[in-house]
């Protein structure tokens, strides 16, 4: 559990002069569930996009299992799966078709992709709706398809950018259990969420970002200890005391 699997080194990114990520460094250990928290606009998604090889950083680098996203993006892509914050699906096609296609793009053969699609639909509880067009799904079901797609290649490192936004407690719980099961199978997970109790329950370690900077890193207990007795304070209180109460964006 102490082997470093991902290392972000002094990542920087600005959009038209507006700094979105401001010299951010952290590590994620193998088989860890690592939470990335922060108010809206803190730079979480931008950080993930750089780690996922789709957004070139202005400065710094990310090493995934020893491969640089700058120099060996191809190697990094073999290791990662991304569940983006915004749904990324083909709505007119069925859940199964979406999964099989992305499976093929991730390097699976036709038969393998179909098998994996079946397993992942089962995992997210959509096996009965496999042949329905995604456009007809509820918001929560689409979220689960979005998650299932990112699991198609059984990645060693999974980026989950707010996977539980806008879904009911049952679905959220289902996703929770899924993430824990995957970690049990050896997957390393980076998880962002605005639900503090969710992060508290799920994550081994957390990083809190604000204004593009990393302002705290540690286990939930360590972070709580910064402002009081860990048993008595909530993660939400830690978050608010670190990031302030002013509205963002």
């Amino acid at each position, binding site marked *: 559990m102490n082997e470093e699997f991902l290392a972000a080194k002094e990542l920087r990114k600005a959009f038209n002069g507006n700094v979105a990520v401001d010299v951010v460094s952290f590590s994620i250990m193998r088989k860890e569930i690592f939470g990335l928290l922060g108010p809206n606009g803190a730079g979480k998604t931008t950080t993930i996009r750089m780690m996922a090889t789709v957004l070139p950083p202005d400065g710094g680098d990310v090493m995934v299992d020893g491969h640089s996203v700058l120099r060996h993006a191809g190697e990094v892509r073999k290791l990662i*799966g991304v569940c*983006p914050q915004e749904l990324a699906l083909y709505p007119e*096609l069925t859940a199964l*078709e979406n999964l099989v296609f992305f499976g*093929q793009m991730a390097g699976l053969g036709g038969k393998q992709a179909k098998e994996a699609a079946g397993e992942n639909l089962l995992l997210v509880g959509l096996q009965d709706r496999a042949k329905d067009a995604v456009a007809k799904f509820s918001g929560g079901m689409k979220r689960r398809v979005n998650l299932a797609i990112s699991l198609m290649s059984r990645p060693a490192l999974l980026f989950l950018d707010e996977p539980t936004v806008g879904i009911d407690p049952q679905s959220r719980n289902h996703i929770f259990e899924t993430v824990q099961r995957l970690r049990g199978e050896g997957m390393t997970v980076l998880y962002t969420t605005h639900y503090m109790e969710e992060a508290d329950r799920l994550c081994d370690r957390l990083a809190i970002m604000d204004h593009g900077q990393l302002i705290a890193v540690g286990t939930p207990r360590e972070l709580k200890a910064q402002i009081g007795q860990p048993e008595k304070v909530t993660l939400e209180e830690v978050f608010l005391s670190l990031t302030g109460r002013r509205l963002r964006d």
Partner: protein
Amino acid sequence: MLRPVHIALFEVRRYIVDRGDLAFSLALPMALFALMYGVFGGDETFNGTANVVDLDGGPAAQEFVSRLESVDGLQVRLRSLDEADRALARTSILTAIVIPPGFSDALAAGEPVKLTVKQRGTGGDEGQIVSSIALSVAQRIAAEVQARRWARTTMEGSAIPQPEIDQAAQAAVTQADADPAVDVAVVVEGESGRADGGQFVDRLLPGILVMFLMFAVTLSSQVIVDERRLGTLERLLTTRLTLNQLFAGKFLAGVARAMLQAVVLLALAYAVLRVGGPSSFFQALAFALLVAAAVGAIGLVIGAAARTREQATWAAVFFTMFMTIFGGTFFDPSETKALDVLSHVTLNRYAIDALEGITSGGKSFADYGVQAGIMAGVAVAALTVARWAFRRTVK
């Protein structure tokens, strides 16, 4: 690597799964073709105009004109030689029948006569029908003049009563009709050049086919902005898919979608209109494939340059309209020099010329090496530019 093929198949699947889109894209070319065929080509009865230049002015010439006028469905328009020449040059008419000076006298003297048919190219279907009507009318007049002359010379002054002379003359006409003693020759004075005004349908089919292939520009131009909007582009870029594979997949998808329409339209034309045999069908399809490749590649150039869906759509629509209009889909671009030159900067001109020859001109793919080379060249050049611009758009 099969990934580009997977992308192409997947995209075709997305296209097909939207039944509305599909029905629209296939029904539209059929409906348009049926409509135009009905308007321009579907006449069962013949209707035409004979442009006649009477340089003779004698009684036989007048008889000739009035008999032409009495033919069902045929109007006669008398023109001066100058007028006819100018109309021919403009291709506003494709044939003119010229009655030479001395026509009546020669006929009366029992000498062979000539009618001159001036025409552009083959003169078109209408021109050919009019010429053959003119020939038979002239032959009949010649036969009658001949028979009357014979009856007059042999029976005049004899005691045979007039009605019997008439009867014999009539018999002689019938006889002469079957075996004319006087030759009426039609001399064709043609101008080389494209003669398609009269064969509207022959050119219409390739025109519409190419126009629909052109629509692939619009579809291809949107694939990248479309995937960006869905968020799937970024998702694809986190997989093992390389930019080259993505690019190849999008190109293949565009070609496949365009060919879907081409196959339907051509199959319909060959089945219903009996345009030609299977060999001609497959050659036309092969040429259509080249056109689809050129057009799909151009679509990707526009797609790679456009930042928004609107930009892509407008650029593609403008391109398509220009190519379709000035390429000669709906009129003959060889009518004026300027149009002729302009049409040669469009892909459509070359594509329509070749497809017309293959579908209805009795020619083969091999006769259109230049046109095929132009399609392939444009495809390669556009693919190179698009691939170069692609990285910038996708990132």
